[in-house]
């Protein structure tokens, strides 16, 4: 018995030592390879990083093996923090990043990324073919710092067959005293429609269905799902103000708008939606949102674009049955300059670009910025990118005008023409909307949103705190954070973010 244990122990030890030696040899041997490796840090696959791995070989061939691409993957919750610790310690681990556009200001603040303007100037397609909303998101301090390859914003997904059902429309009219628009135009209308379709079997599959799905788990990240509810009530229309899309702070003072009546109203409605229009449980993750829609259990959702491509998967039961539209608006907004509510005659839309999209950056620590840009240019080229945005598993949403003209690749990947066109249109419309809110790009963005706001939002959703109470806390903590990071610097960054020239 003892000898047996001895043997097991020594075998384990021997194997371990052997493996150590083998890797040491492999590592040492690998050191003298000819090709220069460019490291790209991005998300764990298959989404976002998948296309890089799919196309890298072609690019490497072009360089005849002189350069090669190595994809380093991180999980979403810690993607930002990992870049942060690398940047802070001056490590040269990464040559390129394909990470959140919303983090651009942090990177600029740390001097961790280089401006790409001098490269972009030579791209003849850039000024004409990239939609303005994306150009704005690529730009900071008047320079191009990042290049978006996946254009994120929140818009509405709805079941055209269910919302368009005349019998249901008639029943709704009887119950609520008015006819809903297809798709619903205001958030209040959206709640009514969601409530109407909540908790009964409208699909005829023997299961009760839900009206609306959203993410309600802290840190998943749920805060992105709340912005479409806040924006219409707290953004001043573009024709009333010089700088459009102001939602987070007053530009001159950095006074948080988070506890302004606009935010409070938006989140009260969000909470109301969760109580009236969704199923019970409150533990939904993004996977639940996507799957409930594509399995035909839910009628509507406001989400990033991914539901569209997922609706083509084998498991999907809603192929061709989804409508795509601008995230609903409001009939009033809070003017933070005059501190009063303003009613609007037409619906006031303000789509939110939660997260803004996945964006290429070149780090300041790379020794090969030109080569790195060559790779980025290759990935963004019309030929490659028009395929990537159409591939369901890429996780990329369209961002070039030519993506709308060229639906060929979309049809190849299972879309029908009408769905594809309306999907691309919904993405580009939300991007181009003059009231659109670009997700916060100032240093500490992740701390403002995830560490502080997300937590209070969670309290609002579960009803353990009133919206006002929770948002007052947010405002206090945002102020404290701004002071810690330096109010004057933050104001300057915020102006850069909004594109205000001082």
């Amino acid at each position: 018995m003892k000898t047996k244990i001895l043997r097991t122990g020594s075998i384990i030890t021997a194997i371990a030592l052997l493996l150590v030696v083998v890797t040491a040899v492999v590592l040492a041997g690998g050191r003298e390879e000819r090709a220069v490796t460019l490291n790209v840090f991005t998300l764990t696959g298959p989404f976002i990083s998948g296309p890089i791995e799919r196309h890298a070989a072609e690019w490497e061939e072009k360089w005849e093996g002189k350069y090669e691409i190595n994809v380093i993957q991180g999980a979403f919750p810690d993607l930002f923090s990992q870049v942060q610790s690398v940047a802070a310690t001056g490590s040269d681990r990464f040559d390129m990043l394909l990470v959140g556009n919303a983090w651009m200001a942090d990177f600029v603040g740390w001097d961790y990324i280089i401006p790409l303007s001098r490269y972009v100037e030579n791209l003849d397609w850039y000024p004409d073919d990239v939609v303005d909303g994306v150009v704005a998101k690529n730009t900071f301090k008047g320079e191009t710092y990042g290049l978006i390859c996946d254009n994120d914003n929140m818009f509405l997904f709805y079941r055209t067959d269910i919302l368009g059902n005349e019998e249901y429309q008639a029943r709704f009219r009887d119950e609520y005293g008015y006819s809903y628009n297809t798709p619903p135009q205001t958030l209040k209308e959206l709640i009514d429609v969601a409530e109407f379709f909540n908790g009964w079997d409208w699909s005829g599959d023997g299961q009760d269905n839900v009206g609306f799905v959203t993410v309600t788990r802290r840190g998943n990240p749920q805060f992105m799902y709340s912005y479409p509810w806040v924006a219409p009530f707290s953004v001043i229309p573009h024709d009333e103000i010089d700088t459009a899309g102001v939602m987070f702070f007053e530009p001159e003072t950095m006074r948080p708008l988070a506890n302004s009546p606009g935010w409070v109203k938006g989140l009260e409605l969000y909470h109301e939606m969760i109580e009236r229009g969704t199923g019970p449980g409150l533990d939904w993750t993004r996977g639940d949102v996507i799957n409930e829609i594509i399995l035909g259990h839910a009628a509507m959702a406001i989400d990033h674009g991914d539901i569209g491509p997922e609706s083509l998967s084998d498991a999907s039961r809603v192929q061709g049955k989804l409508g795509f539209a601008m995230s609903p608006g409001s009939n009033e907004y809070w003017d933070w300059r005059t501190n009063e509510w303003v009613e609007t005659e037409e619906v006031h839309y303000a789509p939110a670009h939660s997260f803004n999209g996945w964006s290429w950056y070149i780090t300041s620590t790379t020794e090969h910025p030109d080569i790195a840009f060559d790779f980025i240019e290759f990935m963004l080229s019309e030929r490659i990118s028009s395929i990537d945005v159409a591939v369901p598993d890429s996780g990329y949403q369209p961002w070039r005008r030519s993506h709308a003209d060229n639906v060929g690749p979309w049809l190849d990947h299972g879309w029908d023409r009408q769905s594809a066109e309306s999907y691309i249109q919904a993405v580009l419309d939300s991007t181009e909307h003059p009231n659109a809110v670009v997700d916060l790009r100032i240093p500490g963005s992740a701390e403002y949103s995830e560490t502080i706001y997300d937590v209070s939002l969670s309290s609002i959703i579960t009803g353990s705190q009133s919206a006002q109470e929770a948002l007052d806390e947010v405002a206090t903590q945002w102020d404290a954070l701004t002071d810690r990071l330096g109010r004057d610097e933050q104001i300057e960054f915020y102006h850069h973010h909004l594109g205000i020239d001082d």
Partner: protein
Amino acid sequence: MTDRSDSTMKYIFIVPVLAYILVIAIFPLLFSLFLSLSRWTPGARGLEFIGLDNFRALAGDSRFWEAFRRTLGYVLALIVFQWILGTFIAALLQKNIKGKSIFRVCYMFPMLLSPIAVAYAFKMIFDFSRGPANHFLRLFGVAPVEWLSGSTPAFITLVIVDVWQWTPFMILTILAAFENIPQQMYEAAVVDGAKPFRIFWRITLPLALPIVMTVTLLRTIDAFKVFDTIYILTGGGPGRSTELVNFYIYLVGFRAFNLGYGAAMSWVQLFLIIIIFTYYIRSLKRIGGLR
């Protein structure tokens, strides 16, 4: 029985360990102490020495103190449940049971599994509408529980996960302690006609107590460090109801890179834990634990 050569040997044996720990562990320790007195902003500003500002801010940070109280509650709940369940099941297993080894092996499984995998498993089990936990409750006509999204249930869920994973450790160690009690101790009692329950209470438990308490100490130390299950299961939510100190430190120190503040919190937590342990160990020594 020791001779001269022993005195050199005894240093040859202990110095490598102490030196290794000192060399490797002392830098991070000192560095975190230094960090707690400074502020590190990535980029141009870099590292600034700010004295006791972090600690001053900490004193007024209700989120930290809330998290600390919550952690104490969590640890206490775990230890009590694991102690009671561990002792109870060990007492049952101590008897002449058929299939004892099968029980023991199966009971052993949970504690050696990856907490990340375990957390995913419980994430699926406690899913509100698709999880077996609520399905099970429904069989008994109990209303479904918001296991992961209600403030109190989410906290209880975390306790259940840890009880599932680490009660086995208590069962097996306590069982071993019970079985290690010399048979003669019982024989006298049996001759006296004492009832089994009385024997357990008067002989088994007191004799095993030193080991039981030592094991409890080890569990307590580890219980403070819970992180993986929170990371996967609740993310600290809903609200802050499952945000324990370590998770908060992680959010502040790593996610937000407010390293100095994170380090300050770690030291305060450490200080408080050591105070608690000192009392605990003192009472342990009194009953003969920690040989």
